[in-house]
């Protein structure tokens, strides 16, 4: 294209205009550690990104190009692009402040501890290792504060310490170690997901070996 680029000025040129499919990708990633799984209350954040599938020729966009979303001819959200692959333009990921997630403990069933010993630094001492498998129930409450329905994916990722036992509702997709729940939440509505988890809890206590404990007469 031909244009005049004057000194110390900005010029704006039309590049392309086309129709596109507009997809919203919302997800909540949940992952616990042996410590956090028994917390009374946890909060998570919903991450949102927009995926535009453009019709016609592919365009290469530099990363971090400003993007403005308009609804009813009014600007609705200002964000940047993260990448463009083929005919897909993908926005950066944002934390969705209109989705509130509360994750509360419901119940802990402590398992029978298995006691083993390890050597300590001091020869008169040893480390008592108490390993138990606790069954933990948690409830994740997701609140949609928007005035339109949303769809999102709750993605629970199990770890070597915290594994999945069951859930209500059942996961929509299992691809270990990920258990995905596809949820639809009505406007200003909530969605509840209960998780049954097994946590490997290991407690270590350094103790004096019994043979070295002085007995008082």
């Amino acid at each position, binding site marked *: *294209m*031909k*244009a*005049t*680029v*004057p*000194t*110390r*000025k*900005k*010029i*704006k*040129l*039309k*590049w*392309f*205009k*086309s*129709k*596109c*499919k*507009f*997809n919203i990708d919302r997800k909540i990633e949940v992952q616990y550690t042996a410590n956090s799984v028994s917390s009374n209350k946890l909060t998570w954040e919903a*991450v*949102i990104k*927009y995926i*535009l599938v*453009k019709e016609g020729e592919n*365009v*290469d*966009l*530099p990363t971090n*190009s*400003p*993007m*403005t*979303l*308009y*609804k009813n*001819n*009014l*600007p*609705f*959200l*200002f*964000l940047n*692009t993260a990448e463009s692959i083929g005919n897909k*333009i993908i926005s*950066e*990921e*944002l*934390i*969705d*402040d*209109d989705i509130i997630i509360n994750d509360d403990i419901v119940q802990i069933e402590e398992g029978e501890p298995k006691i083993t010993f390890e050597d300590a630094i001091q020869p008169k001492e040893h480390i008592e290792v108490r390993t138990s498998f606790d069954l933990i129930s948690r409830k994740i409450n997701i609140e949609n504060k928007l005035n*339109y329905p949303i769809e999102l994916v709750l993605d629970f990722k199990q770890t070597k310490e915290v594994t999945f036992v069951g859930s209500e509702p059942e996961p929509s997709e299992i691809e270990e170690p990920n258990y995905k729940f596809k949820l639809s939440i009505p406007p200003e509505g909530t969605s509840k997901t209960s998780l049954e988890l097994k946590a490997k809890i290991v407690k270590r206590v350094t103790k004096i070996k019994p043979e070295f404990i002085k007995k008082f007469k």
Partner: protein
Amino acid sequence: MLIDPKVKSIVIFNGGGGIVEREMKLPVQQGINEFQIQNVPASFDPNSADIKLEHLTPEDKESITLQQTVISLPDYKNAEQLIGREKSAANSIISYAIDFTRELRENVLNICEASSYRMYFDMKGTFNFIINSTKDGEIIVKIIYFLSDVRIRWNTTLQVNINEDGKTAEIEGFIVVDNQTGFTYENVELGFAIFELPQTPSNIVDYQTNVPPVGLRQEMLGELNSLKNIQKGPMKRTQRFKQLL
């Protein structure tokens, strides 16, 4: 002979800088013909500067040849001194101008603004070339050079109008060219490339580091990406527009 070939095209990099192509038809006389190109910014890369001859007839290939190019950049310290003097003169104009509210205001402001933004890269570089010819004739000369000036760059801006169904949209893409250099490119063929010049003292704002520009091509061939210091900041939060009335 002083010549000012028209800028035919410029390919601008999104990270700043670009490739300039200039072209001109020149008369040549038998013997040595020396030409001096005007309006070459000091941000041009001497290592990548190139002259290409386009002969009008096949016979000219033997008779009209490029002998050599002579390239140099202005002395950095002297240029900085000159710029400093210009800036102080501009300040004096603003301070002492009597008739600063009438029709001259716009012109005075333009002069002063141009001076205050001027830096080393806005000075002129020397780009001469010598053509050897065994006969009188004409030749088309193409001059190509890189600009290692991050003050000329482009980016895109997208407008996405979401339709009522919420599943389709209309996307409009714009290219915004930001030229903060002291040079105007009039009616040129514009090209755009996704490319980032290495962030070295040669092409970032030099006036603070006092480091004169160095060759660009070698830098470009180097490990471009290793020079990028990408640090991810905290994730942004949505701030949706909520209409009250």
